């Protein structure tokens, strides 16, 4: 800690040194902004550039400008050509901004490096403390606070991205199903807080509790309105670390987001009232105020909604400019904020709704990588500016000019805020619980009222107060700061112990399971149905109607056709789970050194299982057809096999060696990818993957398509009812087998029966695909895809070697159709058929160890499923193993 502390100090010193030269000019710049900052929030529009308009620019901006004008380029006429010149004023503004961002983020690094501290004190509180230190250093050097959080910087450059991020990552379903409660808290609760605080303070003032202050009722109400709102930045920062249950979280979080809109509106209304003066306010003005409240709130939401749709529409057609499509989200989101601000609507509500509306569509429309980019950039911006906000909140405190102490005012404010929040939450919850299906528990209510953290929005509003109209502005600012520190630091620190102590229901950390998601969806459908049947229009019903509408119209307009197809929720979950599985396989493979284990171990096992099961699966099938021949089959399976299989096995093995050599040559020559000689690093601004060899891509594509085609066939066959399919499935699988047999002379003799037999064997696997017996399960676990039994055999290293793709391709044509026809002709089964089949069966899958190892496992399962338990496969292989 001490070392990190020293590092921080060093950084600060560095900072001081670097900004030394511009000292004087900055001071004047700050004075400028302090006086001219009022009203920027409503008057400045999107045209107000960063550091271009000194009137509305923040401290650093204007100081940079003025500094540049006064003493740019080192001053004085040039007498000789300077090799290097010191151009501080030329870059001072952006330089300082960047430096500050860096310093703030470094603070975060230092804080996060000390886990034992952050586990006790929330990060936001620590950042504020760091702000104190930095502020102290600046104060020590300058004797005046040069850097403070100005409303312009805060509202235009720091707040939007945080709110956009909040809206974008809002769990929509949760939010809307608790929408009513959230709105009640956000609107009524905030109004209640503002009114009660203002009135109480005013009452206390009249009672003489604060001494001599020049504050009227309206000013009190104005103060009340600015400090009434729970701050999203502070709330997210604290609650993120506590992990309370999701309903509680969405309540606090949603309230803090929406009541920002409310508080800004209230503030503007009261600000206008103060400007008007007490005498001019009549009923008409009050009604106007109320109307403006609704117009501002709903108008802001509407603007956000429109921009959200706009973003969705734009991302629908960004296929060709994928590299900048994430940018649209930010630009349009910011534009919605500025537009609402321009129309003097609620900018915060606007950007919240913008984020909420567009999330679904842009996630579907954009490329997956772009979505990831949006998410990350959003987090970077939000988290970054959150850090800056807290640090600057700390820095702003170290300023003698704002500290006006009035014990009564400050303490009473703190007390009232706390008490009225408590009363408000409990009263509103009491009403809400009458209508809620799941009532909000008492403990949750305590946490909600305790979680009423005030933050930077209140401070920003306080600094926007007009000193000419409100004499005690500094007192208000300093009270606001104290309230912010008190709530963020004190309540933030105590929040975690309190949550633990009260045993608040935490968010359940559960792993994603498909069955749960399916079931949840079933529940939803059920509720809709029940509501429909019982003739009530509840919110399930409404949601269903909305979903229908949304699906029918909104998605149609706002989504790419391709995106529309695959966005069933359950299927997406399924997809995600599969991706996870694949990732864990890769991880496992890396742990073991390579992915070879899939080939050799799991797949091998699967393969074994499959053939083991095939044995027992296929046989009862046959016996069922061939009525009562179970004994016959089993016996003939037992005795003729060993001798035949023994020699065949050897032959096959030899054959493998030979063909292996020949084929590997082919393989190397033709089917390995070309060496990447042209692997140059090119740079492209528009594409990531510039280094792809076209031939390689082409080849991968062809191979994939080929294997997909095969698997598609077998997959398709697999799903049809087992009985009818049994004669056809073999043709999909068959093409890989003739290779294995081609070296085997005795087999060619029996070729007709062979086909037959394999069809039976494959029948088993095809059946499994739909029937879902054990081998199927294993196949799936191997990550080969569920509906694709045909895939597994290829994993068998031997077969794979023997069938280079070019051979398999050729085989495909010849062997697909004909055998199946033969097979059909041959039906129904006769015992004589079977007699010839049995030896061949084993010889074909010549690695007999398959059966050996697997028979018991497969057997077990088959006993459960298939009534006649087939006898265990003969153990004749032991001899030659």
């Amino acid at each position, binding site marked *: 800690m001490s070392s990190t502390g020293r590092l921080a100090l060093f950084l600060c010193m560095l900072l001081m040194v670097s900004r030394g030269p511009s000292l004087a000019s900055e001071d004047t710049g700050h004075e400028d902004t302090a006086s001219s900052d009022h009203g920027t929030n409503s008057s400045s529009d999107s045209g107000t550039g960063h550091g271009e308009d000194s009137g509305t620019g923040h401290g650093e901006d204007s100081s940079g400008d003025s500094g540049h004008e006064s003493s740019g380029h080192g001053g004085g006429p040039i007498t000789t050509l300077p090799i290097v010149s010191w151009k501080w004023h030329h870059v001072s503004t952006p330089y300082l901004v960047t430096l500050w961002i860096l310093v703030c983020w470094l603070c975060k690094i230092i804080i996060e490096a000390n886990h034992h501290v952050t586990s006790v004190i929330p990060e936001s509180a620590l950042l504020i403390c760091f702000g104190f230190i930095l502020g102290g250093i600046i104060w020590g050097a300058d004797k005046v606070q040069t850097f403070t959080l100005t409303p312009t910087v805060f509202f235009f450059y720091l707040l939007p991205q945080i709110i956009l991020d909040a809206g974008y990552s809002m769990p929509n379903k949760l939010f809307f199903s608790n929408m009513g409660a959230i709105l009640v808290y956000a609107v009524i609760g905030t109004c209640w807080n503002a009114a009660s605080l203002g009135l109480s303070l005013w009452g206390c003032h009249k009672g003489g509790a604060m001494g001599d202050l020049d504050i009227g009722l309206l000013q009190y109400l104005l103060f009340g309105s600015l400090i009434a709102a729970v701050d999203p930045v502070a709330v997210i920062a604290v609650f993120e670390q506590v992990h309370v249950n999701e309903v509680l979280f969405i309540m606090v979080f949603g309230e803090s987001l929406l009541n920002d809109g409310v508080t800004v509106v209230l503030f503007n209304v009261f600000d206008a009232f103060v400007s008007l003066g007490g005498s001019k306010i009549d009923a008409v003005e009050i009604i106007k105020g109320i109307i403006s409240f609704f117009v501002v709130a709903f108008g802001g939401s509407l603007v956000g909604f429109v921009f959200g749709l706009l973003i969705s529409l734009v991302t629908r057609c960004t296929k060709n400019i994928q590299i900048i499509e994430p940018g649209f989200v930010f630009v349009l989101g910011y534009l919605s904020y500025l537009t609402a601000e321009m129309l003097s609507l609620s900018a915060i509500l606007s950007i919240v709704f913008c984020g909420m509306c567009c999330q679904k569509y842009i996630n579907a429309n954009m490329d997956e990588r772009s979505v990831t980019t949006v998410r990350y950039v959003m987090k970077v911006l939000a988290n970054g500016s959150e850090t800056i906000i807290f640090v600057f909140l700390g820095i702003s405190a170290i300023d003698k000019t704002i500290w006006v102490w009035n014990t009564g005012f400050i303490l009473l404010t703190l007390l009232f805020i706390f008490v009225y929040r408590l009363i408000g939450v409990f009263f509103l919850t009491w009403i809400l619980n009458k*209508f*809620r*299906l*799941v009532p909000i528990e008492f403990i949750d209510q305590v946490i909600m009222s305790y979680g009423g953290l005030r933050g930077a929005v209140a401070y920003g509003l306080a600094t926007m107060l007009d000193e000419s109209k409100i004499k005690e502005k500094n007192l208000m600012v300093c009270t606001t700061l104290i309230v912010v520190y008190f709530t963020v630091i004190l309540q933030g620190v105590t929040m975690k112990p309190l949550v633990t102590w009260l045993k608040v229901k935490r968010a*359940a950390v*559960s792993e994603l*399971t*498909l*069955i*749960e998601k*399916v*079931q*949840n*969806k*079933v*529940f939803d*459908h*059920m*509720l809709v149905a*029940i*509501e429909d*049947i*019982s*003739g*009530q229009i*509840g*919110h*399930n019903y409404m949601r269903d109607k909305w979903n229908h509408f949304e699906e029918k119209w909104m998605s149609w307009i706002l989504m790419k056709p391709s995106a*529309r*197809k*695959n*966005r*069933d929720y*359950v*299927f997406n979950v*399924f997809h995600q*789970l599969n991706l996870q599985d694949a990732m864990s396989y890769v991880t496992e493979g890396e742990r073991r050194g390579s992915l070879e284990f899939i080939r050799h171990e799991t797949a091998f096992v699967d393969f074994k299982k499959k053939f083991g099961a095939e044995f027992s699966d296929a046989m009862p099938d046959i016996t069922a057809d061939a009525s009562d021949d179970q004994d016959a089959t089993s016996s003939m399976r037992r005795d003729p096999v060993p001798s035949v299989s023994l020699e065949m096995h050897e032959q096959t093995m030899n054959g493998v060696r030979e063909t292996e050599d020949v084929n590997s040559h082919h393989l190397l020559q033709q089917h390995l990818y070309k060496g990447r000689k042209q692997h140059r690093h090119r740079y492209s601004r528009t594409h990531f993957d510039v280094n792809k060899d076209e031939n390689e891509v082409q080849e991968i594509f062809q191979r994939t398509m080929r294997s997909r085609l095969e698997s598609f066939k077998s*997959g*398709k066959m697999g*799903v049809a009812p087992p009985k009818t399919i049994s004669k056809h499935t073999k043709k999909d699988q068959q093409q890989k087998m003739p290779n294995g047999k081609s070296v085997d002379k005795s087999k060619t003799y029996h070729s007709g029966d062979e086909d037959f037999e394999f069809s039976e064997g494959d029948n088993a696997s095809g059946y499994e*695909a*739909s*029937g*879902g*017996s*054990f081998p*199927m*399960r294993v196949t*799936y676990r191997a990550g080969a*895809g*569920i*509906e694709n039994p045909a895939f597994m055999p290829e994993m068998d290293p031997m077969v794979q070697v023997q069938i280079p793709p070019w051979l398999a391709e050729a085989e495909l044509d010849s062997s697909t159709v004909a055998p199946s026809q033969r097979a059909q002709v041959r039906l129904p089964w006769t015992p004589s058929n079977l007699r010839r089949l049995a030896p061949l069966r084993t010889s074909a899958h010549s690695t007999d160890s398959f059966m050996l190892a697997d028979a018991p496992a497969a057997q077990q*399962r088959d006993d*459960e*499923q298939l009534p006649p338990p087939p006898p265990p496969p003969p153990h004749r292989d032991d001899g030659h193993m």
Partner: protein
Amino acid sequence: MGSSSSSMTNIPDAQQLIQETGFSAAHILRLYERFEFLDKDKRGELRQETVDFASFVRILAHFRPTDTSRTRDGAQQEPANSSTGKLKSAFQLYDQDRDGKISRAELLQVLRAMMGIQVTEEQLHSIAERAIQEADLDRDDAISFDEFRQSLEKVNVDHKMSIRFLK
């Protein structure tokens, strides 16, 4: 729907139903009105699979929110709106052949009805496969009620299967 037909006296076994399901008299009345409305041809039952009013109410009783305040006499074994009761009714939705197990085919049927056209048959199969795998603890390729209950341990069934106005 005449108001004359919907007084408590006309409802068959009204008292017993109230006793059994825990609905209030007002609820029964309202449900009876609804039932009469749905029961267009006045047979006293709904179409196809005949549902008389009593079983209609009993089904709906599964969706009554669980309330802790109402004291229940111990004589009743398991109220329909307990979480087990709710789970049972959900389970029965799948278990069409009433063998106490959700087979793959049964799960597929529900999935098919639910997911609509966006998902291909193949995908449905894979989903059913995976879902069964997840829940199937004893590897019998079907989901028994216990397995079903275990798979939904994390879900708050009381909340998920309740409708507010039936309270």
